[in-house]
């Protein structure tokens, strides 16, 4: 059956009208007619890779090099924050920011050469030169300055770097004390500035060469004092022994299998697994739950992220934001700082 000419003309005319109406509608609001998600998710990466130019490199103390990295419109940061530096070999290392947080055109980091270390500092000292570009991620802060009636800081050597911006940021008149220890005065970076920050108030800054005595400083803490410590493992352990609630900044070795054994409770499954010193949470969980997701096993892809219901996590990943770290972890690399973790699995 062939359509009547009149019907054909009517249909074609109607189609033309609809097309015109649609075009006009789209011209008025080009993204009509799809609704939008109230809180968009896309285009908000957790951290962005930035290429920054090394514009200055100074040896500011024995074995300590300070780098100035320049870029444009750099993300802001708060005292205590650190940067992931992607070294030319692909190694990723964290360095505390020790410049001015208000400066959005450059970051400053300082690093000490550790000859028997994991190779990161050696690479910075031997290969990173002025005029070179380096890749960074972050900044991130897992050592934030909280509001407190008074502060006590303990820094060992290069551990002064996250604490220095805190001292600068404290309001005038704030009550604080700092114990700064190092092998020799010549090996301690930012010594002059730290002593100047102490000002007229004698006893505010104590500089110690060699092993510091901690008892005098830590045994009679003022009520509600916030205690911060960054430095060699031995120093942080000694402070932690005297003040369990101390905030420490630890740049842990990013090896996957290395640590103390601990237990993981899988709350939804109702089972408890033990993570051996040389194993990972992922391996222990996968033995119980074979459908557990994972991929890179190095803490960068985020596939194995799980919600943490209780316990203290030692984050060893390179991906999660500070907010995400409050209640979740990447189980392929991160471990427990407490004896037991409770996961929502």
């Amino acid at each position, binding site marked *: 059956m062939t359509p009547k000419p009149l019907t054909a003309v009517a249909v074609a005319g109607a189609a033309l009208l609809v097309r015109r109406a649609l075009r006009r509608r789209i011209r008025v609001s080009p993204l009509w007619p*799809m609704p939008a998600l109230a809180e968009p998710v*896309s285009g908000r990466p957790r951290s962005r890779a930035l*290429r920054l130019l090394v514009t200055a490199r100074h040896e500011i103390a024995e074995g300590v090099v300070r780098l100035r990295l320049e*870029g444009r419109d750099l993300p802001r940061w708060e005292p205590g924050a650190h940067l992931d530096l*992607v070294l030319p070999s692909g190694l990723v290392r964290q360095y505390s920011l020790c410049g001015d947080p208000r400066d959005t055109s450059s970051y400053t980091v300082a690093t000490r050469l550790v000859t028997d270390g994991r190779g990161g500092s050696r690479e910075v000292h031997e290969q990173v030169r002025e005029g070179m570009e380096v890749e960074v991620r972050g900044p991130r802060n897992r050592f934030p300055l909280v509001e407190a009636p008074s502060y006590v800081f303990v820094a060992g050597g290069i551990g002064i770097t996250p604490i220095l911006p805190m001292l600068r940021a404290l309001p005038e008149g704030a009550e604080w004390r700092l114990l700064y220890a190092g092998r020799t005065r010549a090996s301690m970076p930012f010594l002059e500035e730290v002593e100047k920050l102490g000002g007229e108030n004698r006893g505010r800054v104590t500089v110690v060469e060699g092993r510091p005595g901690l008892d005098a400083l830590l045994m009679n803490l003022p009520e509600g004092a916030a205690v911060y410590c960054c430095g060699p493992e031995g120093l942080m352990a000694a402070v932690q022994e005297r003040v369990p609630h101390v905030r420490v900044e630890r740049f842990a070795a990013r090896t996957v299998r290395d640590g103390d054994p601990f237990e993981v409770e899988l709350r939804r499954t109702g089972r408890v697994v033990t993570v051996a010193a040389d194993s990972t949470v992922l391996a222990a969980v996968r033995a119980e739950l074979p459908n557990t997701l994972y991929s890179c096993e190095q803490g960068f892809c985020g596939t194995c992220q799980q919600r943490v219901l209780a316990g203290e996590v030692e984050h060893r990943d390179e991906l999660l934001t500070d907010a995400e770290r409050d209640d979740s972890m990447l189980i392929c690399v991160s471990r427990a700082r407490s004896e037991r973790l409770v996961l929502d699995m």
Partner: protein
Amino acid sequence: MSNKPEGRPDERVTLKARKVSFSWEGTPLHWVPGDPFATHTINVLHLLLPAGERWFVHVYRQVLPYIRDERLREDVIGFIGQEAMHSQAHDEVLPHLREQGLDPTPYTAQVDWFFEKLLGDRTLPPGRARRWWLMERVALIAAIEHYTAFLGDWVLNAEELDRRGADPTMLDLLRWHGAEEVEHRSVAFDLFTHLDGGYRRRVRTWATAFAALVFLWQRGTRFFMENDPTLTDGRASFKDFYVRGRRGTLPATGDLLRSVPRYLSRAYHPSREGSTEQAVAYLASSPAALAAEEGAS
């Protein structure tokens, strides 16, 4: 039997997320020099993929308990890891576009709605209805992956882009992604055949996926062309697409059309599309993937 995909050569590779990192400071707005239309048509990928691949991961997480084949389970887990990395890598391009005066948020907020709400988990009674919606989405992903593999294969071979001096970082992102899409191109289809494999469902979801892709893509290109701050009269038309397809800076319309009956053929299996060898070879030489290997060792 539909469960046993034929013609699957023994080229199985273990799927693993590769750690890549791209920094965009040096990439110009029109990274295919002098060709905003080709640039923006490819840029639409950055609009669709972050939300789309997050959705893949979301759906596949729910599917895992249904898989009864250990090898396939491993493949699906590897697929999820790679897709998660893709979505992160493309997400990082969007702030760069914003800095250059082309804010994609109005569009991506809609794509977010599309994948999170329209194609999200609906309030369905457990049992048949819920399983039906899950299988429908698994089939949709298989159809979309046919096209991601097609595009991956295209970009790996798009020498015209090199000849015209396209930005090397952007090309590396696209080819790293494309190569991984070619590498895991069989997973989504194998999963679909393993769980359901119904031919009517395959056709139905193909039609939906194809229509949605065409709709979203032309819309995205128009959006970019109209909002590009450097173009006074930015327009997009099908003719522009056809011409660049002939030139080789975009997929050829003919190739695109010819891929349709291939997917709808009852004998279809993705292992016959593209070449794993070429994909693995690219990944072995990609600057970003190479840096990842070194970082891992």
